[in-house]
């Protein structure tokens, strides 16, 4: 098989893998501060995409739709934290697992009733006619995924390292009790992390929709893969999710090419089992010694 086809498959797959990485990054953000994740993250991706689509059909320009979509995602993220996570965390229970799943199901029915069950195209001014780079066809849409994902992750990482608020987030992530003794409100930091996570999910929705269309079930497959990426990479490393996301995406499309499209998901799942068996903290994760 000629090398150009392998390169084409790997590049197309890797660019989709970046979307998994972005959603996985959303899991990391909330896990760092609160040791909880939103199991309804996929639905958050989906409602944000639908919301943005509605804005576009109302005639708003694309460049205005992106920030509004992100704000919507952030608001929904905060709502999830308030209704599904905070009480459970205060009671030191694992109730957030079930509550976030339930909120996700609610968002799903909400979307079905408001926007219907059909897949719809998501118009964007970014063209989808491919151009040729190093023997590989790439569309500007795929490049927009690359740029969007790296820009937003870079901005959040800078925010965490350079600003006072960001440092508070890092402090709570490192040691919640010590941070509270220093006068940092852990609760507010967690709210912030859920808002960021929601914004990231919304961006994932806006970036992927023009490629895959928008529908209530659009994110169910995406979010499963994002979980794999988060677990394989480890729940600490932002750099790790990008690497693993690219790798998993490329692996998937090569598998569907060589083994047949029915085997597309198999290597990802094998990778997940392997990672859990060999490095349960993730490839880029650090083993944490928990003091009792």
């Amino acid at each position, binding site marked *: 098989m000629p090398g150009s086809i392998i390169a084409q*498959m790997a590049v197309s797959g890797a660019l989709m893998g970046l979307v998994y990485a972005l959603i996985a990054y959303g899991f990391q953000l909330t896990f760092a501060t609160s040791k909880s994740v939103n199991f309804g993250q996929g639905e958050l991706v989906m409602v944000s995409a639908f919301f943005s689509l509605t804005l576009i059909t109302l005639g708003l320009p694309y460049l205005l739709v992106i920030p509004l979509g992100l704000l919507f995602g952030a608001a929904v993220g905060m709502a999830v934290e308030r209704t599904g996570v905070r009480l459970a965390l205060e009671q030191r229970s694992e109730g957030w697992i079930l509550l976030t799943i339930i909120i996700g199901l609610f968002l799903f029915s909400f979307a079905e009733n408001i926007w219907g069950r059909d897949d719809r195209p998501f118009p964007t001014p970014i063209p989808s006619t491919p151009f040729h780079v190093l023997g590989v066809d790439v569309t500007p849409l795929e490049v927009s995924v690359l740029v969007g994902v790296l820009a937003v992750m870079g901005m959040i990482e800078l925010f965490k390292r350079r600003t006072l608020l960001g440092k508070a987030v890092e402090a709570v992530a490192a040691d919640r009790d010590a941070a509270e003794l220093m006068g940092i409100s852990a609760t507010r930091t967690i709210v912030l992390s859920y808002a960021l996570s929601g914004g990231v999910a919304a961006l994932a929705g806006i970036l992927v929709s023009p490629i895959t269309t928008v529908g209530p079930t659009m994110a169910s497959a995406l979010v499963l893969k994002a979980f794999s990426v988060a677990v394989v990479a480890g729940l600490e490393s932002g750099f790790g999710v990008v690497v693993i996301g690219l790798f998993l995406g490329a692996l998937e499309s090569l598998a569907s090419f060589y083994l047949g499209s029915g085997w597309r998901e198999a290597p990802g799942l094998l990778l997940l089992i392997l990672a859990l068996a060999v490095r349960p903290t993730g490839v880029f994760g650090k083993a944490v010694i928990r003091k009792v």
Partner: protein
Amino acid sequence: MKTFLAALLCALAAPALAADTVKIALTGPFSGGSAPMGTSTRDGSKLAIAEINAAGGIQVGDKKMKIEVIERDDEAKNERGALIAQELASMPDLAGVIGSVNTGVVMAGDKHLQEKGITKIICPAAGSASLTQWANKVGPPPFEGPKTLSIFRFAAHDGIQGAMVVEEAIRLGFTKVAIFFDSTNYGVSGRDDLLNQIKAQGNKLEVVATEKWNIGDKDMTAQLLKAKAAGAQGILIWGIGPELAAIANGKAKIGYNVPLIGGWTLSMSNYIDNAGANGNGALMPQTFIEEKGISPKIDKFISDYHATYKVDRIPSPVSAAQGYDAVLIFAEAVKQAKSTDSRKITVALEDLKTPVKGVITTWNKPYSKWDPANFETHEAFRRPQVVMGKVLDGRVTFSNPADRDRLKAQAAK
């Protein structure tokens, strides 16, 4: 107490009133990926029903009876289809069923209707298996079909469509083609029809790639690259709208400019809309083209549909037209049977005395007595009622202008 008794009497009397209507169930997917076909069939059928009811109803024996509609959404899910069929089969006064888009749903549900002898016109599901499941098979294992069958089809079955698709590919001068299909009953039976047809038409086409996908798949790059690498000059394809659109878009992405030739589903609005400009040039057999100027009856049907449902394009014109004509044929059978009893309607359908003027054509004895050795006895469509359509800028037009002239001449007669 008196009022209570009166109310009770009224309640008991209600079923007697219901017997003064002809109850027809319209089923199909009114939501999900197959919805354009399901809703168009339903809405086309309801246009015909509204016209019949406005004229006072169907003449059944010595009285006129209006049509009462029961709607059920099967969501294109086989298990929902089975449940709905069971429910309908248990209704004592149901005259018949019109609908079903998905071959899997037909396979799951129709046995319940056949058991009770309830007349069903499958419309517009095209998968061959919907009727061949009742026909004799040589085996292994050998199968002997039932002597009587209450299931009819009103759609160009995939046998006809497969033949036309292969003909078209040969006409375009192709020698190497790829076969693409989805993993549903519809896709798999479509693939078989294509392979059989290629053999039947003299093995002029070499199948260089055979690829499939699942419902909901968005990324078809792998399948397309294989077809491209193998040098396929055209893709013969069997699937439904959203995934067909994903393939058209994927084709544009990898710069693989060959036509899609496939089942009539390439005319679904969710293919045309989701593929946009990438969808142009797709070829598919059609029983109806949404184009005015062929005959006054067709013009009226299109205008009525647009006005009643407030659209400027029928989501699936083929489905709407077939739903419309199926109701007219069913009503004629009720009239001839002089009864709302399904078994009598089945007999009447098998020997319809009066030609029915529909929007697709004038139906002259569309069905004949069921013969398990020949499933075409319960198929209404033959090759001449089907034309090749082509997607062009968001609409389906005639691929071959000669077909338009032929239909015009036929309508003028």
